[in-house]
C-alpha cells in the first residue's frame, strides 16, 4: 500500500475516528478535527503538479482480486489531479464553512462529518482509480454518501423524498454504467482504462461498442444531472447548504463530466458519442437556465443553474471530442472546446461554490431563501452582497471575472461547430450557437435575479423570521477565498492554470494529440479583438437587461407548459406504480401460510432439478461399483421408512417429535456403519438439540384439533412429496454414476497433514480448506439467532405496550 493509496482512503479511515471526536470533545466543534485532513491532502496532491506538468503519470498498483483483473490501481494524471485538487480544496473550504453553519449544540455532527468524509474518500477514489470496477465501487459510494447527506435532516419529509430520488436515479445510472464497463471488458479483456484506451481503434467495430457507449453515457448523464435526469438535483437541495456547495455543485455532479472526459479517447472515435454528449449537453444548458428563471427559492435557482452549467461543460466536451479526428495539433480548431470545458469546470467550482455559501449565509441570517420575501439586504450585509455580486456576474459571463473568459471560449467552441463537416453535423450545426446564446441570456437573467431581488428593492422585515445582520467572519472566509479566486483567475489565467492544470488535463482527455516534444499550449486572452464571440456577449448583456426588466410581463410563458407533462410528475407516478405493482404482485403469492410456501419451494425444486437432469442427459444408473448391501443397512432403512411414515399418523405432537427424532438417530447410525464418526457425532447431537427445540416450540402451539387428526389425502402435497423423493434419489444415483473428473478427496488425503498439519480431514476441511464456508455459516447462524431473538422480544414488547 503506497502513500497514494493511503491518501485516497485516508478520509474513509478518518471517518472511523469522527464519533470519538464528537463524543470525547463535545465543547469543540467536531469540524475543527476534520479540517486538517483535506488541507493535508490538498498539499499532498499539490506536490504532484510538477509531475503531471512534465507529462508524467504516477501509477501505483495494489492487488485486490488479481484473478479477475480487478486491482486498486491509483493513477495520477492531469485530469485526475485536477479533480483531486478540487475535491480536497473545495472540501477544506466547505468544512471550514460548515463549522459556522451547523450548530454544535443542535446538530448530529458526527453523522454529518462521517458522511462527508465518506464522500470525500469515495470521490477521490473515483477520479484516481485506473481500474473501472474499483472506480465503479467508489462511484456508487458517492451515490450512497450523497443519499445520506441529502437525507441528513431526515425528519423532514422533503429531505427523505429528495434523498430517495437522487438515489434511485443515480444508482440506476450507476448500474447501467456497470453494464457498460462489463461490455468494455468483453471487448478488450481488461478493466484498466489505460489499457482500454490503447485498444480504442479495435473495439469501434465491435457490435457491443454502441451498447457500451450508451450504457456508460447513461451513468454519466444521471450523475451529472443531464436532461432528462436532472430532476433529482433540485430536490437534492434539501441537504444542508455546505453539502449542496460541495457535492451538488463542485464535485459529485462533476463525476459524470469526469467520466465523459476520461473515456473520450475510447468512445470519441464514433460520431454517436459526439452527437449524444454535445446535444444532450447543449439542451440541458438551455433547459436548466430557462427553468432557473422561474424559481423563487434561491437554492432552486442555483440548482437549475448548476444543471445548466453542467450541460455547458458537457456540450463542450462533446464538441471537443471532434479534435481527436485530426492527426495533430496544427489547425485543430476543436481543442479550444475541450480547453474551455476544463477551464469552465474550475471556474464553475469557484463562483458556484461561493454563491452557494452566500445563499447559505442569507438563509442562516434571515431564515428564508424565498426571493419573494427577501429584498433590500444590501444595507445589512454589504460583504455578502459583494460576494454574491462577484459570483453572479462571473456566472453571467461578465468581465472582470473568470466566467467571462470561459464563456467567450464556450462561444468560440460552439461557433466552430458550424465548420464541422463530418458525422452529418452540418444540417443541425446552426442550433448549437443559437441555443448557446439563448441559454446565456437566461443565465444572465437568473444571475441578476439572484443578486438584485435579494439585495436591492424593498426591505420586508415582517416576512423574515430573524433580523438580518452580517454573517460571522468564519462563515465569510471560505466564500471570500473563492470570490478572490474568481477575480485572480481572470487576471492571471495563464500563469496560474494554463500550464499547471489545464494542459496536463487536456493531455489525459486527448492523449493521441500529444507527442514527445509538443504539449498543449493553452493561452487564454482577456481581449481578442472585435470578434463574433464578443458581439454575442454584448448581445447577451443587452437582451438580458431588457428581459430582466420586463420579467413580470413575460413570466406567464412558464404557465404554458402543462403541469401534467413535467418530468417530476412522470417520476412520481413511476415510483408510485412500481410500489403498488410490486406490492400487489408479492401479495398474490405471499399468503402467510408456511405450507403453501413449502409447496412453492419444493415444486420449484422438482421442476428445476428434474428438467436439468433430463435436459442435460445426466440421468444414469451405474451399479457396477456398488458395495454389497448388508443386513444392517436393510434394517436401518426399513426403520427410517417406518418412522417417517408413522409421523403422518401420529395423534399428538409429542409422538411426532419422537418419531422425527427416531428418523434422525437412525440416520446417524448409518454414519457409524459407514465409518464417519464425525458425522455420526454431529448428527446425534443435532438431533438431541433439535428435539429439545421442537419441544420448546410446541409448548406454544395450540393443541392439534380433533378434526385435523384424521389425515385427509391431499393430491398436490402427495405429488410434491413423492416428487421430491424421486428427484433426490435420481440425483444421488446419477451423481454416483457420472464421473467427469477425478474426485477431490485424493487432494485432501494428500494435503491434510502436509499443508494444514492436521489428521482429522473433516475438521481440517471445515476450519482450513473451506474455512470461508464455515465463516459464513456461523455468520448466518448468528444472524438467524438474532432474528429469532428480535422477533420474539419485539413482539413481547409490543404486547406489553398494548
Amino acid at each position: 500500500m503506497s502513500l497514494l493509496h493511503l491518501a485516497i482512503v485516508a478520509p474513509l479511515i478518518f471517518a472511523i475516528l469522527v464519533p470519538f471526536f464528537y463524543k470525547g470533545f463535545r465543547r469543540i466543534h467536531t469540524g475543527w478535527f476534520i479540517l486538517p485532513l483535506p488541507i493535508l491532502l490538498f498539499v499532498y496532491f499539490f506536490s504532484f503538479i510538477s509531475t503531471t506538468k512534465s507529462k508524467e503519470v504516477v501509477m501505483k498498483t495494489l492487488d485486490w482480486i488479481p484473478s479477475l483483473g480487478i486491482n486498486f490501481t491509483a493513477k495520477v494524471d492531469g485530469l485526475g489531479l485536477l479533480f483531486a485538487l478540487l475535491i480536497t480544496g473545495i472540501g477544506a473550504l466547505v468544512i471550514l464553512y460548515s463549522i459556522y453553519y451547523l450548530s454544535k449544540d443542535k446538530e448530529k455532527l458526527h453523522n454529518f462529518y462521517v458522511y462527508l468524509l465518506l464522500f470525500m474518500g469515495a470521490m477521490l477514489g473515483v477520479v484516481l482509480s485506473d481500474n473501472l470496477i474499483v472506480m465503479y465501487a467508489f462511484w456508487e459510494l458517492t451515490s450512497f454518501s450523497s443519499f445520506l447527506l441529502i437525507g441528513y435532516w431526515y425528519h423532514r419529509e422533503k429531505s427523505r423524498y429528495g434523498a430517495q430520488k437522487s438515489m434511485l436515479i443515480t444508482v440506476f445510472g450507476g448500474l447501467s454504467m456497470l453494464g457498460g464497463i462489463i461490455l468494455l471488458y468483453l471487448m478488450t479483456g481488461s478493466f484498466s482504462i489505460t489499457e482500454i484506451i490503447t485498444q480504442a481503434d479495435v473495439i469501434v467495430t465491435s457490435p457491443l461498442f454502441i451498447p457500451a457507449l450508451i450504457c456508460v453515457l447513461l451513468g454519466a448523464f444521471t450523475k451529472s444531472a443531464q436532461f432528462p435526469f436532472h430532476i433529482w438535483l433540485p430536490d437534492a437541495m434539501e441537504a444542508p447548504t455546505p453539502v449542496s456547495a460541495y457535492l451538488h455543485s463542485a464535485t459529485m455532479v462533476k463525476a459524470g463530466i469526469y467520466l465523459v472526459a476520461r473515456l473520450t479517447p475510447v468512445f470519441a472515435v464514433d460520431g454517436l458519442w459526439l452527437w449524444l454528449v454535445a446535444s444532450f449537453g447543449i439542451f440541458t444548458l438551455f433547459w436548466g437556465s430557462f427553468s432557473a428563471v422561474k424559481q423563487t427559492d434561491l437554492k432552486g435557482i442555483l440548482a437549475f443553474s448548476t444543471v445548466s452549467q453542467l450541460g455547458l461543460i458537457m456540450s463542450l466536451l462533446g464538441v471537443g471530442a471532434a479534435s481527436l479526428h485530426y492527426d495533430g495539433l496544427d489547425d485543430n480548431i476543436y481543442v479550444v472546446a475541450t480547453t474551455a470545458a476544463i477551464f469552465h469546470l474550475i471556474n464553475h467550482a469557484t463562483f458556484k461554490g461561493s454563491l452557494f455559501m452566500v445563499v447559505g449565509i442569507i438563509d442562516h441570517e434571515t431564515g428564508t431563501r424565498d426571493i419573494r420575501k427577501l429584498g433590500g439586504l444590501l444595507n445589512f450585509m454589504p460583504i455578502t452582497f459583494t460576494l454574491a455580486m462577484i459570483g453572479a456576474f462571473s456566472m453571467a459571463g461578465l468581465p472582470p471575472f473568470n466566467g467571462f473568459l470561459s464563456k467567450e471560449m464556450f462561444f468560440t467552441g460552439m461557433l466552430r461547430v458550424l465548420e464541422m463537416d463530418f458525422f452529418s453535423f452540418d444540417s443541425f450545426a446552426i442550433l448549437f450557437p443559437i441555443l448557446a446564446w439563448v441559454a446565456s441570456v437566461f443565465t444572465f437573467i437568473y444571475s441578476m435575479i439572484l443578486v438584485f431581488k435579494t439585495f436591492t428593492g424593498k426591505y420586508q422585515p415582517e416576512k423574515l423570521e430573524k433580523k438580518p445582520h452580517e454573517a460571522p467572519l468564519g462563515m465569510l472566509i471560505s466564500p471570500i477565498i473563492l470570490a478572490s479566486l474568481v477575480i485572480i483567475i481572470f487576471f492571471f489565467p495563464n500563469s496560474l492554470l494554463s500550464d499547471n492544470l489545464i494542459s496536463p488535463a487536456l493531455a489525459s482527455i486527448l492523449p493521441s494529440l500529444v507527442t514527445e516534444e509538443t504539449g498543449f499550449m493553452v493561452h487564454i486572452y482577456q481581449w481578442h479583438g472585435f470578434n463574433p464571440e464578443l458581439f454575442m456577449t454584448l448581445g447577451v448583456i443587452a437582451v438580458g437587461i431588457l428581459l430582466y426588466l420586463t420579467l413580470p410581463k413575460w413570466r406567464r410563458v412558464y404557465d404554458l407548459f402543462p403541469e401534467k407533462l413535467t418530468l417530476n410528475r412522470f417520476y412520481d407516478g413511476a415510483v408510485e406504480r412500481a410500489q403498488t405493482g410490486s406490492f400487489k404482485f408479492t401479495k398474490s403469492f405471499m399468503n402467510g401460510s408456511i405450507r403453501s410456501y413449502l409447496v412453492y419451494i419444493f415444486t420449484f425444486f422438482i421442476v428445476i432439478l428434474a428438467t436439468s437432469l433430463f435436459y442435460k442427459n445426466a440421468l444414469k444408473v451405474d451399479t457396477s461399483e456398488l458395495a454389497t448391501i448388508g443386513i444392517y443397512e436393510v434394517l436401518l432403512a426399513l426403520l427410517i421408512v417406518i418412522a417417517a411414515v408413522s409421523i403422518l399418523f401420529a395423534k399428538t405432537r409429542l409422538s411426532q417429535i419422537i418419531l422425527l427424532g427416531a428418523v434422525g438417530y437412525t440416520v446417524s447410525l448409518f454414519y457409524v456403519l459407514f465409518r464417519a464418526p464425525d458425522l455420526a457425532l454431529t448428527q446425534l447431537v443435532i438431533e438431541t438439540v433439535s428435539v429439545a427445540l421442537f419441544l420448546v416450540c410446541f409448548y406454544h402451539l395450540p393443541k392439534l384439533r380433533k378434526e385435523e387428526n384424521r389425515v385427509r389425502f391431499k393430491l398436490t402435497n402427495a405429488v410434491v412429496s413423492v416428487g421430491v423423493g424421486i428427484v433426490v434419489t435420481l440425483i444421488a444415483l446419477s451423481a454416483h454414476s457420472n464421473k467427469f473428473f477425478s474426485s477431490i478427496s485424493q487432494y485432501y488425503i494428500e494435503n491434510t497433514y502436509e499443508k494444514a498439519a492436521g489428521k482429522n480431514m473433516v475438521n481440517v476441511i471445515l476450519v482450513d480448506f473451506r474455512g470461508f464456508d464455515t465463516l459464513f455459516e456461523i455468520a448466518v447462524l448468528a444472524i438467524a439467532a438474532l432474528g429469532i431473538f428480535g422477533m420474539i422480544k419485539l413482539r413481547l414488547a409490543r404486547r406489553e405496550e398494548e
Partner: protein
Amino acid sequence: MRSRNNVILETTIRLVLFIIILFSVYIFFAGHYYPGGGFIGGLMTAGAIVLLLIAYDIKTVSIILPFNYRIMTGLGLLFAIGTSAGAIFFDVPFLTHAFGHIDLPILGDISLHTATIFDLGVYLVVVGVTMTIIQTIGEDE
C-alpha cells in the same frame, strides 16, 4: 414453577453434566487430529445446558450459568473473523492458518494452531446461537 418431582433426573444431571461438558471440551481440542471439532463440541455443550434446562427451569439455569449468549455469539464471530483477518498482516491471503510445535516440560510435544482459535470461534457461536434460540423461545410465555 419448578416441579420437585424429578429428583432422580436432577441428581443424575449434576453428575453427568460435568462429564458431558468435559467431554465436549476434549472433543473440541481433539478436533484437529481425531473426530471432533468446534462445531460438535459446541453442540455438545449446548446439549448439556439443554439437559440442565429440562431438569431445572430457565431462571435457575440462568443463575447457574449467567452468560449473555448473544454476546457469546458475537465474541465467537470476532474470534473467527479476527483469526482469518489476522493473516493479512503477515502478507498472506485471508484465512491462511499457521501452526507450529513447542516442547513443554511435562506435557511434551504440543502442536499449536491458529485454526484452533478459529474453531474456538465456531464453538462459541454454536453454543451462543443454540442457547439464544432456546432461551428466547423458552422464556416467551
